[in-house]
């Protein structure tokens, strides 16, 4: 099996990772360090890798993968990295998946301890047991256990929640599959979780300890025994019996072990005997202080010397030629996941490690730790040494002693941090950047703590650890997005008439999640401005049709419905007669306008409330909140019918004829169906309701039908309208038309800081006592109107603006300042801002709405609209530009 590394074909065997394959062919230097440009090679065998990071070039590509975690497949192409990954520019065509899994027992880690824990759970008769392992599972497990292989648990969260990443295809094929998700993010909920996450071998500090060929001893031995890597000549440097075991394994796998340097003295036990039998030179009380480089930048020799247990170099040393320096500085239990849930760790001086402290409580009592992650297992024949490395005296030596090769962070950096007065391990981490690299300090963290403790003359336990942060392994952005991409990235809501709009050249605007026609381009090259003028003119002079289905609709029913609505709206709804409709405004408790809409009374106990498109969900929740939490005594039930009802607006002088053509058994004459009246009737054969309500000031009808009939009724009205030159119009024209009448749009004229009075709607606000002198029912927000700031004169109030130059259109958002204000000295006092600004076909000029301080009393005054290059003067007017007496609405 062939793959390519840095352009060179490399032969690999089944079961190889990029790291094992490269080592087998003798490639030691495979990457370079981020800042110092030093050659770097494989240091470990798993997630603890800190040197050999590669960029995946084949397939869709992926930056910064540890070579020890990339399984070789035919066609794989990788290159060694220089500390930074590259983002492929080509779009990523692969599929990413998310899945949810619920179980009783989640076991993390497929090693001996994990498999044992899962098997025990089976024998205890526990149901739904899931075992997650980050590689191919080596051992067989009972069928009752669901095994997720090549899956890494990356985070533990509240309430039994675990997140895991499964890499599903890259070990099978180098290219992405169009049908099979490349990665899957699992969301697992378990009743209890067992962490069997094992431990990471620790390196040692000595000069030039970052050279290719310096590996963790256990990793080096495994490469020899499992992957057939021939090391040539090895020197083992250790502080722990596992180093002795590694030396034996290397020897028995055919590697010449020249020397074993163990800082400890008085070693006993089988391993020592076995090493002696094999004639391996074991130097007790010795350790490494430096290495020499070969031509490839890798290690050529290691300098060994007698040292004290405290790391004081006694000398004289000896330079031993070798190809491999196998280092074992002890083990660090992998407690990252445990700490995510607040699991405490404690320094175990006998095991020379921070182990999970099972005695103290944490956030997730259902999470337990087993195996070496908890420091379990028998004590070795020889206790491990509390020793983190030996550094000879000499200029600049410390700057060649690497603690975090991934960040080129050295002992010199650590000393500078302490010299600067820093004592908190978190400060030192940030000052030196140790532990912030791609390996998240798996090997460097405890080494740094140990060296810090040694320098300060305290125990590592007193220094303490830094905080691990999820994710446990780096997670691709796209994998986290899952299938929430492209058209699925966020729902797009459409109305029953959507397809018609598309067929007729609608250009859509996104309103919340809704797709609404912004305007209809009658020809390919009609500009928006022209289209909007055309649509507005049609409504003012002929007839137009608009899809108003996105407006929120709430069926409010119950004996106390009227009472309820009186408390919600600033105006009185209980006086509304069945068959009539009324515009209303509701405020928050702070007195600021929350939403508005037309309320239809269907019967004594039955209302149909309409809301803004964006406010539909909010208003329903608002109703439910008050009914459930404050007024449970009220017998009222709100039901959303937003999607149930499609609404066709037919507006314009010609609208009555069009409506009459589709409504046969209802008299829609001015006398029979008065303004703000509504009636049930068949509409083009569909059951519906016709309402005389106008947001444009023109004669207008709202046709409401069950959404199933929306498309039909729209097309029927469109057909009937052909004789009258009916024109479809979108939200922009609707906005212009309502602005000509001075009607506000919540969210455009308002930003959550306007009272009804600010908007000139005080006529909608109930007085505390009615004309007869009886107190009126209170409504939400009324109390806030009495606060100092809401009583303040000169609040910003709604006005109309006419640019002095009738052809100048002021941009919306333009700020209004006094004419002659000195714009060169900031801050310039601002008197208000333009909320809406349009070109009017009817007025044959531009106009705008604005909020201006004390504006209600300033009609006729001039202001300067400031928006950059060519500011323009405007005259304050009434916000009602058209038909103030409302003569047009009856047609």
């Amino acid at each position, binding site marked *: 099996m062939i793959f390519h590394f840095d352009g060179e074909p490399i032969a690999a065997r089944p079961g190889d990772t990029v790291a094992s394959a490269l080592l087998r062919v003798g490639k030691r230097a495979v990457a370079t360090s981020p800042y110092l440009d030093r050659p770097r090679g494989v240091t470990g065998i798993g997630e603890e890798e800190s040197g050999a990071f590669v960029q995946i070039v084949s397939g869709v590509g992926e930056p910064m993968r540890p070579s020890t975690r990339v399984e070789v497949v035919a066609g794989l192409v990788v290159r060694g990295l220089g500390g930074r990954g590259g983002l492929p520019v080509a779009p990523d065509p692969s*599929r990413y*998946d*998310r*899945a*949810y*899994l*619920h179980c009783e027992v989640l076991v993390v880690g497929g090693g001996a301890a994990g498999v044992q824990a899962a098997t025990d759970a089976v024998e205890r008769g526990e149901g739904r047991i899931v075992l997650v392992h980050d590689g191919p599972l080596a051992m067989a497990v009972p069928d009752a256990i669901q095994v997720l292989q090549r899956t890494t648990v990356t985070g533990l969260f509240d309430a039994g929640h675990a997140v895991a990443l499964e890499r599903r295809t890259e070990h099978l094929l180098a290219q992405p599959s169009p*049908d*099979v*998700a490349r990665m899957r993010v699992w*969301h697992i*909920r378990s009743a209890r979780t067992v962490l069997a996450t094992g431990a990471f071998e620790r390196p040692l500090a000595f000069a030039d300890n970052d050279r290719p060929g310096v590996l963790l001893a256990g990793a080096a031995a495994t490469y020899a025994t499992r992957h057939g890597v021939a090391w040539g000549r090895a020197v083992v440097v250790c502080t722990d019996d596992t180093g002795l075991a590694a030396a034996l394994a290397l020897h028995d796998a055919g590697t010449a072990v020249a020397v074993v340097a163990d800082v400890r003295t008085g070693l006993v036990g089988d391993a020592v005997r076995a090493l002696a039998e094999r004639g391996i030179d074991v130097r007790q009380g010795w350790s490494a202080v430096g290495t020499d480089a070969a031509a490839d930048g890798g290690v050529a020799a290691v300098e060994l010397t007698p040292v004290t247990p405290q790391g004081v170099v006694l000398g004289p040393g000896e330079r031993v030629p070798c190809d491999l320096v196998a280092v074992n500085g002890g083990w660090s239990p992998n407690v990252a996941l445990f700490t995510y849930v607040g699991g405490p760790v404690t320094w175990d001086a006998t095991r020379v490690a921070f182990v999970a402290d099972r005695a103290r409580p944490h956030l997730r009592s259902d999470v337990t730790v087993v195996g070496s992650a908890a420091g379990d297992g028998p004590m070795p024949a020889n206790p491990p040494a509390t020793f983190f490395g030996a550094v000879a005296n000499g200029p600049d030596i410390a700057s060649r002693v690497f603690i975090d090769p991934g960040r080129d962070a050295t002992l010199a950096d650590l000393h500078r941090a302490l010299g600067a007065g820093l004592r908190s391990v978190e400060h030192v981490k940030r000052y030196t950047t140790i532990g912030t690299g791609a390996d998240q300090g798996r090997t460097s963290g405890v080494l740094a703590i140990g060296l810090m403790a040694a320098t300060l003359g305290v125990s590592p336990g007193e220094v303490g650890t830094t905080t691990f942060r999820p994710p446990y392994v780096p997670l691709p952005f796209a994998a986290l997005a899952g*299938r*929430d991409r492209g*058209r*699925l990235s*966020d*729902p*797009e*809501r*459409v*109305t*029953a008439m959507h397809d018609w709009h598309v067929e007729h050249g609608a250009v859509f605007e996104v309103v919340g999640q*809704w797709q609404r026609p912004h305007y209809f381009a009658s020809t390919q090259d009609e500009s928006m401005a022209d289209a909007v003028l055309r649509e507005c003119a049609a409504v003012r002079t002929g007839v137009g049709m608009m899809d108003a289905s996105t407006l929120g609709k709430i*069926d409010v*029913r*119950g*004996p106390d419905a009227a009472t309820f609505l009186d408390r919600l709206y600033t105006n009185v709804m209980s006086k509304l007669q069945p068959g009539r409709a009324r515009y209303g405004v509701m405020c928050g408790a702070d007195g600021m306008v929350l939403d508005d809409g037309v309320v239809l009374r269907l019967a004594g106990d039955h209302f149909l409330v309409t809301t803004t498109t964006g406010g539909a969900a909010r208003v329903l929740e608002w109703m439910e909140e008050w009914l459930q939490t404050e007024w449970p005594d009220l*017998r*009222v*039930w709100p*039901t*959303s*019918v*937003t*999607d*149930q*009802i499609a609404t066709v607006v037919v507006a314009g002088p010609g609208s009555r004829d069009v409506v009459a053509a589709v409504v046969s058994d209802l008299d829609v004459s001015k006398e029979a169906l008065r303004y703000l009246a509504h009636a049930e009737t068949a509409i*083009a*054969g*569909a*059951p519906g309701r016709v309402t005389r309500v106008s947001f444009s000031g023109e004669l207008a009808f709202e046709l409401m039908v*069950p*959404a*199933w*009939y*929306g*498309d*039909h009724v729209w097309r029927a009205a469109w057909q009937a309208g052909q004789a009258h030159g009916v024109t479809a119009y979108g939200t922009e024209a609707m906005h212009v038309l309502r602005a000509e009448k001075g009607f506000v749009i919540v969210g455009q004229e308002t930003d959550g800081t306007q009272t009804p009075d600010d908007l000139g709607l005080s006529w909608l606000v109930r007085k505390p006592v009615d004309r007869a002198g009886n107190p009126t029912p209170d409504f939400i927000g009324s109390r806030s109107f009495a606060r100092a700031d809401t009583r303040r004169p000169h609040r910003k109030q709604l006005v109309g603006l006419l640019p002095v130059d009738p052809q100048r259109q002021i941009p919306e958002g333009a700020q209004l300042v006094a004419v002659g204000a000195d714009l060169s000295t900031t801050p310039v006092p601002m008197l208000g801002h333009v909320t809406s600004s349009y070109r009017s076909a009817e007025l044959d000029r531009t106009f705008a709405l604005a909020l201006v301080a004390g504006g209600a009393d300033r009609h006729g005054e001039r202001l300067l609209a400031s928006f950059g290059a060519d500011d323009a003067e405007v005259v304050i007017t009434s916000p009602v530009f058209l038909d103030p007496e409302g003569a047009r609405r009856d047609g």
Partner: protein
Amino acid sequence: MTVELRRSPLAGAAWGDAATVAIAEVPFTPAVELRGHGSLQAGAHLPEDVGETRRLRSRSTFARRVCCLGPQWWLVTGEPDDLTLVDEVTALVDEVTAPVDEVTALVDEVTAPVDEVTAPVDEVTAAVTFGSAVDVSAQRTRIDIIGPRWADVLRHVWPRDLATLTVDTCAQGLLGRAQALLIREADDRVAVHVRASFARYAYALLTDAATEYA
């Protein structure tokens, strides 16, 4: 009613093969949301626990189902051709104030479980003091997931534990990013009800999630 004029949000779209998994709109399912203010202690005919559903018999031959969506909140659904369901169920509210026997009659017709003896008159009236019954037939769109792999598909987009969605139970939650009601209609059939404006999203989401199982 002129049913031929209707158009469903997905125009009857269907995908896949029920031998593994199929996803298909079931257009024009009638539905009414019922809200009751009165106590349901004696509501022998209505499920009281959220997630519980009951099959109903009616004067007509159609299978109907009432789902408990929340406290004092039910959804009555039926088969597409069950054109009288809405009128019969909404009539309940109009009839609340009518003489007891009339109410009973209506209640029996609409909400009596298939294999259940009709409860005594007084119990039934105590059970059904509805405050609101609203036609929501077009509010939600029904998309069925049919076939042995239905759960494999849903677990990609439905975070709740599907093991608890046993036959004749229902659950509300989030389907991807859209609110949805799931009804386990049969061993290998789940009905997904989403707001009509979300129907295209839900259908695209489900067929995407089903890709590896088709």
